[in-house]
């Protein structure tokens, strides 16, 4: 009997944990290409928090190669930080793109990258749209834009 009760309790608890999302972070995915790139889907976040964290993963579509600068655009202008995910002690076993000074360096076709974007919207903002944009540093053309939509209300649910 105890086993059945624990099983039922754990099931309810885990379903709730799977359903509930605090809404201060999301996972966005995109593909960088010379034609402007493609976001898998826009990011939806509930407005009203002072800090949001996006983990942004992407791949490079051929024939694009080069360096891409990452910026967060929108009105009113947000405060933001972008961080890379590089080895701490780099054993240089494999070539990989690197991130520094907001620039992904050495991107080649089929590379994958991960960056973290921390956005702090202005206090007065209750909704609106930002873009996490990638610009090729040589041509200044956009190679990927990922829309980030801030919407009213708490407890918004989104895929992670």
């Amino acid at each position: 009997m105890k086993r059945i009760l624990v099983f039922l309790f754990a099931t309810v608890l885990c379903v709730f944990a799977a359903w509930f999302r605090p809404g201060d972070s999301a996972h966005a995915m995109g593909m960088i290409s010379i034609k402007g790139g493609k976001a898998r889907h826009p990011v939806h976040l509930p407005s009203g928090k002072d800090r949001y964290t996006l983990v942004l993963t992407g791949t490079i579509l051929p024939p694009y190669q080069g360096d891409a600068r990452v910026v967060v655009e929108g009105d009113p202008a947000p405060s933001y930080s972008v961080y890379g995910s590089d080895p701490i002690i780099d054993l240089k076993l494999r070539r990989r793109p690197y991130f520094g000074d907001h620039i992904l360096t050495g991107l080649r076709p089929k590379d994958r990258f991960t960056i973290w974007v921390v956005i702090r919207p202005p206090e007065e903002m209750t909704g609106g749209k930002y873009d996490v944009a990638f610009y090729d540093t040589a041509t200044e053309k956009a190679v990927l834009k990922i829309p980030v939509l801030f919407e009213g209300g708490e407890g918004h649910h989104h895929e992670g």
Partner: protein
Amino acid sequence: MKAEHGSPGSTSFWARHRNSILVIGIILFLPPLAAIVQTTGDVNFCGRWCPRMFFVWREGTTLTAFLVGFVRSYMGVALVVGILATTLYYGRYWCSHLCPAASPVELGSRLVPSPLKLDFSKTPAPSFRYAYLLVYLIVPAIGIGSLCCNYCNFAAVPRLFAAPFSDGDVAYLLRIQGMANVGLLLFLGVFARGGRAYCNLLCPIGALDALSNRIGAKFGRRVRIDPDKCTNCGECSKVCPTWAIDTKDATTINQLSCMPCRLCQGVCQTEAIYYGKQAS
């Protein structure tokens, strides 16, 4: 009977050097070195090395996209297949000796004084564990949400190690979900008696590995009890980190929770506990 009797007396390499192997696993798999994952150009278990996501079917996923997940996480697939295959024959050595998500938590728990530790051993672990696994597999498929990624020990533990060196990993942790993961690792790991409640209750790899352990128990090597030597003193039960030993009537080991850490073997005064094949 082919067995390694012993202990206090076990002469097995794996039993004697378990602590060293736990530390080696941390050095090889976790930042700042993470040498094993760097062989594929990665920095952590997310992506190619992810052992948890590829077998999760999400609502709206096509078969092609599902299979692409296996290709994307090919090292994770190899890891899980390797873990389950070796467990069939030799028991859960990945969980007990190598898992970099578990090792630092267990070692950390040894630094916590016993009076501060929480005892979860009254919880029927398999009931909780397989409820978790069921939700882990079914809930994404019907589109309610996901436990995968959101509550991931293979994401949280490497980032805890990387946080002193990397702002990106700090960003992972400074989210409500990141803090929830750390809280679970502390509550069910560092502050749990034995340091393995997280593994025992909330790890999908551990749940699959435990099934493999149970299935292979008939023909594989496992930690077992010789009933002729056992005095049912209960000392083994006190040190079992996965609360797999039941001493209520006769002492028995639940192979759905046991891993070959061999701590029980180390305290058995009558050498009743051994690691080996089932007696014929």
